[in-house]
């Protein structure tokens, strides 16, 4: 029987994992009383329902509901001193939980503290834009939309940022293969040659490690040279090296080039 390969996550996986392997966890600690993070948690908890708060590797991580993101970030900015949002993006948990995780990495410049606000949304649901609070989200949310297809409500200019406007698919989804999908392999062929020439040109090679020994145009055949563009296959491929090229080959084991052979 053919081995089952999951289709909802096509990213690289470890070829072997011990049966008894249990991954350890990064230590999570409770928020210390009367610390800066405690004040943040209290300020947020007073206004919205918190789903969790813990300190992980020196940074606070608070989990909220996606609809509260504007409220929470307003509290963080106005009453907790988080004047800067350094980063925001999403993590694809569709295969595991059927959800996206969106994180906002916040920075308090006065106390040099960092807080990560995390929320989850279902695919197809939109998240409210935080551009009114932090202008940096203009590009970051566009990138998130581009890479994950998460729609953002009330964004001033929501369109693809990194991929071309007419691209199909969202590259950072776990269902999107590393080498690109069917659409990706025809995209440039269609752009440059036109759809009508698909049969002649063929799909783009999107595997940089591909080696085709019968391709006489893109691969050199040292010692087995054939004319450029010659049709090659298993039958007409020469078994032995061509004589004339032997003189050009360097025997690295001999230490020095045998120049006599050339004359």
């Amino acid at each position: 029987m053919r081995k089952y390969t999951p289709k909802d996550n096509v990213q690289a996986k470890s070829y072997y994992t011990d049966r008894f392997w249990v991954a350890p966890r990064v230590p999570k600690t409770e928020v210390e009383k009367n610390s800066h993070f405690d004040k943040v948690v209290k300020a947020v908890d007073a206004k919205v329902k918190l789903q969790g708060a813990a300190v992980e590797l020196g940074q606070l991580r608070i989990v909220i509901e996606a609809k509260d993101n504007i409220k929470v970030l307003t509290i963080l900015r106005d009453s907790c001193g988080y004047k800067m949002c350094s980063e925001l993006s999403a993590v694809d948990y569709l295969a595991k939980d059927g959800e996206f995780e969106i994180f906002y990495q916040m920075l308090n410049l006065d106390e040099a503290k960092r807080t990560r606000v995390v929320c989850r949304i279902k695919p197809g649901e939109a998240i409210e834009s935080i551009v009114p609070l932090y202008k940096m989200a203009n590009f970051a949310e566009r990138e998130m939309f581009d890479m994950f297809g998460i729609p953002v409500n009330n964004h001033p200019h929501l369109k693809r940022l990194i991929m071309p406007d007419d691209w199909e698919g969202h590259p950072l989804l776990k269902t999107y293969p590393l080498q690109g999908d069917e659409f990706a392999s025809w995209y440039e062929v269609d752009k440059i040659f036109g759809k009508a020439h698909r049969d002649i040109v063929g799909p783009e090679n999107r595997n940089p490690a591909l080696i085709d020994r019968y391709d006489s145009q893109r691969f050199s055949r040292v010692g087995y040279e054939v004319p450029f563009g010659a049709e090659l296959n298993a039958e007409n491929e020469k078994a032995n090296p061509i004589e004339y090229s032997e003189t050009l080959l360097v025997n690295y084991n001999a230490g020095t080039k045998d120049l006599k052979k050339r004359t």
Partner: protein
Amino acid sequence: MQVTNKLTPFFENLNFDRSDNTMVVNFGPQHPSAHGQMRLILELDGELIVKSDPNIGYLHRGIEKMAENMTYNEFLPTTDRLDYIASTSNNYAYALSVERLIGLEVPRRAQVIRTMLLEINRIISHLFFLATHALDVGAMSVFLYAFREREYAMDLMEDYCGARLTHSAVRIGGVPLDLPEGWLESLAIFIAKLPEEVKTYEDLLTENRIWKMRLDDIGVITPEEALSWGCTGIMARGSGIKYDIRKEEPYELYSELDFDIPISDRCDSYGRYVLHMEEMRQSAKILEQLIPMYAQTEPKLMAHSPQYISAPKEEIMTQNYALMQHFVLVTQGMRPPVGEVYAPTESPKGELGFYIKSEGTPYAYRLKCRAPSFFHAGYLQKLLVGTYLADAVTIIGNTNIVFGEIDR
């Protein structure tokens, strides 16, 4: 609305032709002063920019996607290709976040070497900034002087790791090599000469009438805007925001070193140029302090953590268990604990940090590179509005953006 097809392509300036309206100009994608591949769609009223729309993505290689398909050690050389002007700062930022995730203690000698490399990279990057920025603005001779000095710095990098641009000089858990013989002496010569060289550039530029006219009050960033748009590094410090991650959230040896963080309240391009010059002096000062520190360290370069880091070669060749662990680490890759980390570092361009989400597998579940240039490029849509077309070149050069890390 225009109907476009192959015979009648989209004509951007139809409105302009008809009613002397605003004109749409494509700045790039292949413009020498865009410092890479950026298409800036500018709407001009006369020479005044009324709207700017930066289009990026011409150098997109899917580095974040590749990170999800590579083991942690495999991915490290890929980080070279982010900010390719100062590769070690990317290598380091990535290594730091993985180390924080694992909880590794890096040996002191490796820390000294890393800090040295980071500061050399800062100098290389700032010299590159100065050279290209001056060239954009029209000061050709500065370009020649700055690139000459940058050559010496790159020679130092080459002597250490063999590469000039894509260094990969930092490993997760330490550094791969000890300093070669005579390297510290060459470094001492380099940093002794650097302040003089910086003085030469300043003599050429600081009081230069043309330079002042081109930079003074150009590209004004208010502190509020700088924070809101996510400006970091010199872009923020040029607006009087006192924040340098080396001081505020120290990593490596920065807490033990004595250096100043130059701040400018001018908020304009000229102020940021002055900061770049001052930061080079501070980097030289840091390197000066690091040289004697090196001699006081034990010759140990990689952290001892057999679960994550391969043992030294002698042990692998002599001890069976070390060989087995090395084999597993090479074939399967290390498995950091489950959890997430965001480790910010002060790269020459600003705050560079890697957010890594680990699910306990040898592959990062998600890696997000917080690149400073990405947000600086995003800010161009606001920063350029209301300036003249000629100043756009100055402003883009002054933001010091690198497309490797914008497009990723």
